[in-house]
């Protein structure tokens, strides 16, 4: 791989990882804000409203960081992956642009009202703006996952003889079966993040014996929501996601399993995969297998194996080999249906993909 490709990958990987810190938090926090506002309207306890103001400020600042780190992500599709954009833009940019049209305008309008309009409009409107903000952030997540789902599991397209990709079925792209498990798994992850942040701050205040009233609210809501979301993260969403990867992306699964096992065993001081008995030549460090030249013939032969899901040769298929180590992700090597080590070898290239998008965008 040439230097500019490596740097392009590093740059994009940094952009997308750094960006995701913020929307992951705000998507979860938006739900918690709605909960706080509903509790206030229901119980008429001023502490809930003050809590909503407090977290609203944190939401605003994280939201702005999300916006300003999100613009580079969109731009870098063009600046860093121009060939991919020209090739697949007609399809993946449909959902990207829909995110702008349907979610971003909604979010930005109601964030302004949520932050600046409480005195003018009163409580009902304030609650309404919180709900719209919540719907907006989640819709935004849904659209970006629709774009990513197409990159994981391309549908509704055709390729002309000159190698151009064209959209043929808009509804198939919008209702890609990949979206639902991906979206639910990502959203529950976001709710966990925000719930843990809220719990953490509440716990700190409790231990420091400051703002005791508020600390109790933060910990109570944070723990309850965090517990529900954590369970949901494992089952059914983690399980669905795991089955999906098993069925359509055996290579990714193999990489996940190997990386998880390597991480654990090397931590214990034992490296099992240097022995020739290991059947899957999967490399976690991206050594030999990451050469694009080595993969080309392999990719073609992989396609000729008529895999159940014909994957288009999109130049930058994203994968994230950073699973949270769920049972469904790491304990099912027997279900991987790895037909041959050749298949794994040839499709390995995709697991160390140029666009290291995390699987939830």
């Amino acid at each position, binding site marked *: 791989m040439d230097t500019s490709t490596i740097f392009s990958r590093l740059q994009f990987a940094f952009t997308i990882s750094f960006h995701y810190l913020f929307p992951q938090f705000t998507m979860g926090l938006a739900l918690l804000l709605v909960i706080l506002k509903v509790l206030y309207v229901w119980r008429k306890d001023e502490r809930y409203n003050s809590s909503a103001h407090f977290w609203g400020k944190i939401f605003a600042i994280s939201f702005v960081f999300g916006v300003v780190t999100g613009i580079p992500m969109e731009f870098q599709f*063009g600046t860093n992956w121009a060939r991919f954009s*020209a090739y697949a833009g007609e399809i993946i940019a449909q959902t990207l642009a829909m995110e702008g049209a349907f979610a971003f305008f909604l979010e930005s*309008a109601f964030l*302004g009202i949520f932050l*600046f309009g409480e005195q003018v409009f009163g409580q009902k409107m304030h609650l309404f703006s919180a709900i719209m903000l919540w719907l907006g952030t989640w819709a935004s997540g849904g659209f970006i996952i629709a774009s990513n789902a197409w990159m994981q599991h391309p549908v509704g397209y055709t390729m002309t003889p000159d190698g151009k990709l064209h959209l043929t079925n808009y509804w198939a792209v919008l209702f890609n079966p990949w979206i639902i498990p991906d979206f639910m798994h990502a959203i529950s992850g976001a709710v966990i993040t925000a719930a843990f942040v809220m719990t953490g701050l509440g716990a700190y205040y409790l231990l420091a014996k400051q703002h005791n009233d508020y600390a109790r609210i933060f910990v109570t809501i944070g723990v309850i929501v965090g517990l529900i979301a954590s369970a949901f993260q494992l089952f059914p969403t983690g399980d669905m996601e795991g089955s999906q990867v098993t069925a359509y992306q055996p290579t990714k699964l193999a990489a996940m399993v190997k990386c998880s096992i390597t991480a654990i065993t090397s931590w214990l001081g034992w490296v099992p995969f240097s022995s020739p008995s290991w059947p899957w030549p999967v490399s976690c460090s991206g050594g030999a297998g990451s050469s694009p030249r080595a993969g080309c013939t392999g990719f073609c032969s992989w396609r000729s194996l008529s895999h159940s899901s014909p994957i288009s040769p999109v130049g930058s298929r994203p994968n994230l080999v950073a699973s949270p180590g769920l049972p469904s992700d790491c304990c099912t090597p027997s279900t991987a249906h790895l037909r041959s080590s050749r298949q794994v070898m040839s499709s390995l290239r995709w697991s160390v993909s140029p666009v290291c998008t995390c699987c939830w965008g």
Partner: protein
Amino acid sequence: MQTLWFILVGFMLTMYVVLDGFDLGAGAIHLFAAKNDEERRMILRAIGPVWDGNEVWLIAAGGTIFFTFPLLYASSFSGFYLPLIIVLWLLMFRGVSVELRSRIANPVWASFWDGMFFLGSTLLAIFFGAAMANVIRGVPLDKSGIFFEALWTDFNPFSANPGILDWYTVLVGLMALAALIVHGATYIAVKVEGPLNARSRLIARGALVATIVLTILTTIATFAVQPQMSTNYLGNPWGFIFPAIALIGLIGVGYFNFRQRDLASFISSCAFIVGMLASVAFGLYPLLLPAVNRANSLTIYNASASQYALTVGLIWWILGMILAIIYFTFTYRTFWGKVSSVGGYE
């Protein structure tokens, strides 16, 4: 269908410049218009509820170009790699400075973010102007639609290997800065009262003189640099309606400024920007990104997506825009009138 999308993309970019233009302009003047911390906060409160919504027009326009003209998105974004990364840094610093300045009550902290806000806003205005000038002038596209431009080469817009910055693009950049300062200053005048209002009017007046001079210069230079302009205008004289709108807007800004009718002055400034951008779009049509070697230019025909994609896109786009316009009308009505001295950014 391609022509329709050319107009719609032009509409989105124009919305971006008209809306984000006033908060860029406000950022470029806030160090000079506001004399103390209280006045700076008033300026931030005037743009606070709306600026990130305004910036969404840029993201939405980017996404729309991406799926309607994928080749244009790919070619221009990779070719303009260097200036775009600079623009991204400026957008980031500018965005976070609005949010961070009042979070820590420390004069040094606030001054630092005020400086960042000023720098980001001013340079963005110049860079957006220069970007438009690069598109008008043309770029060294090769047959496969690829190019790369250095930040500067020989500063000559007629060269075979032009850079991002040459005397023409810098001229348009300065013109954009002057026009957006007028735009921002008239907006601030609408939104605030007292001495800040008077100073904003004064700044608008000064920047207006600069805008008039620079507009005349850039108009002459544009017709010299891009021959497509004269072809379109002489072939279809009805197109002169767009420069006429810009001219009426320019006169209106000055007239209403002296009559102290701030809102009318701001609306005239909007008309000026709409007229100028529409004039450029009319002059370039059907080119999207002219090449130095004319045969390699990207047009609305060779860069567009398939008819099917453009058609389904149009259906949801119309729906999305209706919703967006409802939100915007609602937000601006909500925050209508002069900003008070209490509220956000305390």
